[in-house]
């Protein structure tokens, strides 16, 4: 990660109920949630959560209901008071803020989108979109202009004068999104924002969000119980279980190295070929031939034979990929002396390299249809490794055996 830290959560606890202090002591002694509930009738909402959220990323907090994810997001703007711990936003600890600072922070820095939309039924769409600005005391004309711009961004400017109950669910949530965008926040908190929408609209809204994110990079904290959604939009994911943050990482990292059985169970049934990219699985075990002036086909062939390989991956001195040569193509070239004896003449014609961000799904046809391992390049054309049929199958096999053992254990 190259970006700086926007939100930093440190040892955050939330304990609901009559005896939070007692529960904290018991927690520190290492007692479990259930025991504590039995002894004190106190519920542990969030337990010792620590993680960082980077500027401009979509950070998904995922977990089943009751895992504490909604409590967690509400502690980021202190709709729920943390029992202990700290939340830093731009290096300011919001837990120690007084009311005025808190109100100011909520008005300027962050806004929130709710699962149930939470639009004001007595206000028009435009007034709803302008709500945050109105709270901030922005004059009517300015806030309506800005609210209208926000509505344009979500394609609802034509509905400005309507009342929320005249709109469909998807449209209402667009208004909710516009209300969040109108204040131009650094941080957008989205609490299961798309969960109440039907699947088609949900995907559409996810795309919309990703599109908005390409225009203006905001830090988005997205709460979801839907793994597909998390995978689709999340730059990084935090998985919560029973109030604890079990794992934080990119979707690929978590898929490849689940921290425990809970996480693994979560990911069961996920098709790894949709999530793992060529870059994730590419290995650099193939023979590379650095093309310097005068490198002869003969020398290249020698290198292949010495390494007992059939194919060689030709790169220049900056590791920019040039082409693939095979032992056969090199021999053919050497056997026809009227051809110019240069490596370029031995390149296999059908090679189409793949990009590191292509999914396994995307590269499958290329991997399957050629005998050589598929070369994987990054944005600048640099060679990052290759994916052979063998490697591809091994990756699939590994995720499947993990699932299988997991199921066996549960039985």
């Amino acid at each position, binding site marked *: 990660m190259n970006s700086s830290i926007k939100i930093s959560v440190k040892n955050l606890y939330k304990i609901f109920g009559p005896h939070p202090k007692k529960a904290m002591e018991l927690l520190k002694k290492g007692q479990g949630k259930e025991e504590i509930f039995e002894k004190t009738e106190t519920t542990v909402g969030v337990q010792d959560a620590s993680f960082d959220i980077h500027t401009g990323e979509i950070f998904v907090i995922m977990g089943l209901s009751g895992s504490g994810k909604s409590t967690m997001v509400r502690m980021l703007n202190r709709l729920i008071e943390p029992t202990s711990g700290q939340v830093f936003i731009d290096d300011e600890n919001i837990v120690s803020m007084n009311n005025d600072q808190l109100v100011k922070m909520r008005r300027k820095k962050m806004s929130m989108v709710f699962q149930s939309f939470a639009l004001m039924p007595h206000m028009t769409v435009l007034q709803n979109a302008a709500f945050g600005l109105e709270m901030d005391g922005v004059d009517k004309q300015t806030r309506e202009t800005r609210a209208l711009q926000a509505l344009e961004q979500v394609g609802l400017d034509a509905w400005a004068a309507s009342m929320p109950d005249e709109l469909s669910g998807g449209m209402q949530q667009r208004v909710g999104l516009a*209300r969040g965008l109108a204040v131009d926040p650094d941080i957008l908190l989205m609490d299961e924002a798309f969960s109440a929408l039907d699947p088609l609209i949900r995907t559409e809204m996810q795309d919309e969000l990703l599109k908005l994110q390409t225009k203006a990079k905001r830090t988005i904290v997205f709460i979801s119980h839907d793994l597909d959604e998390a995978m689709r939009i999340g730059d990084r994911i935090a998985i919560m279980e029973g109030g604890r943050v079990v794992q934080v990482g990119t979707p690929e990292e978590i898929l490849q190295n689940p921290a425990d059985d809970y996480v693994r169970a979560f990911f069961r049934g996920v098709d790894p070929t949709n999530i793992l990219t060529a870059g994730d699985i590419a290995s650099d075990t193939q023979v590379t031939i650095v093309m310097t002036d005068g490198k002869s086909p003969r020398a290249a062939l020698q290198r292949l034979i010495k390494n007992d390989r059939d194919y060689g991956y030709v790169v220049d001195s900056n590791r920019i990929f040039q082409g693939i040569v095979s032992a056969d193509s090199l021999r053919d070239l050497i056997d026809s002396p009227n051809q110019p004896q240069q490596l370029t003449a031995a390149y296999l014609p059908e090679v189409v390299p793949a990009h590191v961000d292509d999914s396994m799904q995307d590269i499958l046809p290329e991997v399957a249809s050629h005998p050589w391992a598929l070369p994987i390049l990054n944005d600048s054309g640099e060679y990052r490794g290759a994916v052979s049929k063998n490697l591809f199958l091994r990756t699939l096999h590994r995720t499947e055996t993990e699932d299988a053992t997991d199921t066996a254990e549960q039985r």
Partner: protein
Amino acid sequence: MRIFNFDEQLIPLDEWVQSLVDWLVLNYREFFQIIKIPVEISLESLEWLFAALPPFVVILFFAVAAWRYAGKRVTVFTVLTFLLVGYLGLWEDTMTTLAMVICSVVFCAVVGIPLGILSGRSDRFEMLLRPFLDAMQTTPAFVYLVPVVMLFSIGTVSGILATIVFALPPIIRLTSLGIRQVHPELVEAAIAFGATPWQVLHKVQFPLALPSIMAGLNQTIMMALSMVVIAALIGAGGLGNPVVQGLNTLEIGLATIGGLSIVLLAMVLDRITQGFAQK
């Protein structure tokens, strides 16, 4: 020990209350007389206004209100009602009653809506308030008429104070209910967008509770009208007068036209305020 000896009175609560009221009357009557001044002033000006206005202006005013908020049929009904009470010879009494009702409802609203808002936002306050509201609604008016008269002396103002005691609970209860019915997610959303507690109340809770508050106001008007007869017992005047007089002298006819006028007036006010609440 004879715990269950109920033959003699062990707790002389009646005497305590008696001496408390006596003591209040003896030492603080002046104070209570001062308290009633604002009520007296507003009532007198209202009464003066209704008496001074020519009947057709009053009828026109109510007809326009009915037209705007409640439609054609209520308008016709309103005009007919006012004409009828006029022809029955009860116009002056009706105006007095209107002034009394308006005056007590205004005081109920001024006191009741803020109390309702407080109790809508605080469980503890609501718990504290509830027994008082129960007592105000269920204590027979005759019980507190005597101390009210002793402290505030006989007359229309005492009638209004008794009316306020009886008519205040519904507006408090329905305001509180209205505030509590506002979806918590909306309040949460407002706070998330940086609303102060005052902004939450003024931009979200109050406007959304308004229909319920208006229903409370409507109930308060109805309750105030139903107190008219009882208030007449302590010399309040108005439409209660013919009823009380009729009862005392067994003139059934007089009591009937008084009662009829109260009922018709109640219906007019109810329809107009309900229409207003729905707008």
